[in-house]
């Protein structure tokens, strides 16, 4: 078929796009997992947090296995062009770096979880100043609107055993990865240049900048209240416009 070649290309592109979306998802879950682990042992620790950690971890595992099978299949294929191969190697480096971060975070969460059990009579959680819950972060990781908590009361101890097993599984997976796929990570060239993170986050928003400038000890006036004000202002304008439109319509109809 004359369309065979383009067919293969489109299949390869589809493979690339699939990989990219899956990697993005894995990336998001890794970032959220790190945020959750940093709250372990502090005053924002709770049974909910342990459950969130467990769920996020499981999701990360699924994504990791899916990514790995897809990428190993793509990389083992001998018929890919050099450009494609370079792209797959880049994706592979992304994947393995994500996995490294995840592995370290899982091991740390095991250690901290063992050091700070929740079911003891006198809990000595470190008073770090964080008091809010991490539900929103976990919801972001799981890509759901609201988190549902169905864990039992002993989740902190039962989960740790599972965590150990999972860490072993991840270890094995990483070793297999290193053996099977011959990718030289240092040979990969990154597509982003220095400062690339500034480009797509132009819409940072004023709220976080304002609050955190206090942390920097610069005696700037907080712009923290402004976003709320702005929202209220926008609401007022909107209702005013609606009212005017209603009045004009009424007048038009009457006249």
């Amino acid at each position, binding site marked *: 078929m004359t369309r065979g070649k383009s067919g293969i290309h489109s299949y390869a592109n589809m493979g690339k796009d699939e990989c990219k979306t899956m990697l*993005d998802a894995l*990336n998001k879950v*890794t*970032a*959220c997992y*790190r*945020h959750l*682990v*940093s709250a*372990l*042992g*502090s005053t*924002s620790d709770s049974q909910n947090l342990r459950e969130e950690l467990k769920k996020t971890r499981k999701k990360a595992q699924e994504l990791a296995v899916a990514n790995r099978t897809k990428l190993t299949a793509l990389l083992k294929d001998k018929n890919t062009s050099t450009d494609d191969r370079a792209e797959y190697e880049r994706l592979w*480096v*992304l994947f393995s*770096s*994500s996995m*490294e*971060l995840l*592995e*370290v975070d899982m*091991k*740390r969460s095991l250690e901290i979880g063992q*050091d*700070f059990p929740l079911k003891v009579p006198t809990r*000595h*959680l*470190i*008073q*770090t*100043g*964080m*008091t*809010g819950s*991490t539900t*929103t*972060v976990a919801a*972001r*990781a799981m890509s759901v609107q609201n988190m549902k908590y169905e864990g039992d009361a002993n989740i902190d101890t039962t989960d740790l055993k599972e965590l150990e097993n999972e860490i072993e599984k991840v270890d094995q997976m990483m070793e297999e990865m290193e053996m099977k796929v011959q990718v030289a*990570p*240092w040979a990969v*060239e*990154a597509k*982003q*240049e*220095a*400062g*690339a*993170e*500034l480009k*797509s*986050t132009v819409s*940072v928003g004023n*709220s976080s*900048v304002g*609050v*955190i400038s206090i*942390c920097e*000890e610069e005696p700037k006036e*907080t712009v923290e209240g402004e976003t709320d004000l702005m929202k209220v202002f926008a609401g007022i304008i909107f209702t005013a416009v609606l009212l005017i439109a209603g009045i004009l319509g009424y007048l038009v109809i009457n006249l």
Partner: protein
Amino acid sequence: MTIISDRDHAQHYRPRMACLKKVEAIVVQMQHPTNGVKRSEQKLNITTIPHVMAGQDIIAWIVNHMKINNEEAQAFGTMLVAYGYIYPLQDHIRLVLKPDGSLYRFQTPYFWPVQKWRPEDTDYAIYLAKRNIRKKGILNVYEQEEYNKLHKWMNHKWDFIVMQAKEQYQAGKERKKPDRVVFDCQERAYWIVHRPPPQTHSAMDYGVDRHIDPNTEEKETCEYYRRIIIYTQQAVMRSKVKSSVSLGAFVKYMTTYKEHDPFLVPCLPSNPWQTDDDLYWELNVSNVDVPTKMRVERWSFSFFELLSDPRGRADFKIFLKKEFSGENLAFWEAAEEMKWDAASSMSEKAESIFKTFLTPGAPRWINIDGRTMGLTVKGLEHPHRYVLDAAQNHIFMLMKKDTFYRYLKSPVYKDVQKKAISPAPHTFTDVQLQQNSRNRRPSIHPIITWQQEQEEKAKAAAAAGPVDLKKLKEMTSKLDRK
């Protein structure tokens, strides 16, 4: 492959940091709701963030809990801050515990220092990228430098770093505002401890990595016991010295070198590492005209000291020239050169030394006993690095027992002693010290000093050459007459 902490293929381990676990126990005790440190709240315009402590309260608690006095408590508290278990909210770069109302907060256990987990460069790069986003591209100077460095050598991971930084930033925004502030402060404090800003000192500095994992117990296999057996056998075979004798030697060494140890006595004029003023090094350069008094005194301690100091050796050479017995030292120096020289030059060196020093009737014939001479001549047929060792030692002992003491009583030495300078100690104020640290400049490149040395050596060789020929002519004429 990529280096992961547990499967570290480079096999470098951090040394044991035993204090960390003990400090953690104390930090947990500080959390006690009634017996722990007194806590208050931090008011930031609209939000209030709880769990804030004043420096004086922390010190009071430590004094109470550990039953120590105020100064020790302050030192201990500073250690807590320096390791990163507590971080200051104001003046976050100087990690000290101030005994006043300045505010501190506890660090979350994820950011505690742990011996097993070293802070990775990937994480630091992600942190810098996040900070870049937050500060809209304007980082501190040293942070910008680190960022560029990391971008250069971690380039293959840079996509990942950017992606992760953006994701972590977005995930962070999901939390409530006070928690966001606290998290940013925590992260910043963590990286100040583990990547200290310039001209600050990190408490986590630990020197060289270990080659074996200090946390694993060594398996007691056959090989292990074999090693122990060999070690103890060799220990038994070592020659033993009476403890009274060896202790006497220690005492003698310590009394002689007491004033010359820079740890015990401050070196004059000032320690360059502490005051950033390198006058001490300038005065003690190897080819200086007027040496310092301490240096000259050191030459009188032992012959080895005199020879190992290049200025002392030059002085000794002048003395020997006056006595016309320079061949001993020349032979000793030639043997030293042969020891340290390249392997390819062994045979030529051996030949030249033989011709100059050892053949009967040589221009600079040395006087060593028959047995050593026989051994050396036989060895020179198959020359190697240490073939002149026996002769060199013999000459060394000759010089030490005879010429050295004459040197110490000679006018040459007394002259040098009189001329030697004793620099006055520096007294720098704080302002001057800061100025000194700003005016630090690199010194002469070692290549240039090496080139200068080579030139001087060439000049000395050229100067010595014609004299040899003259002497040779004299000796040959003497022999002819005989």
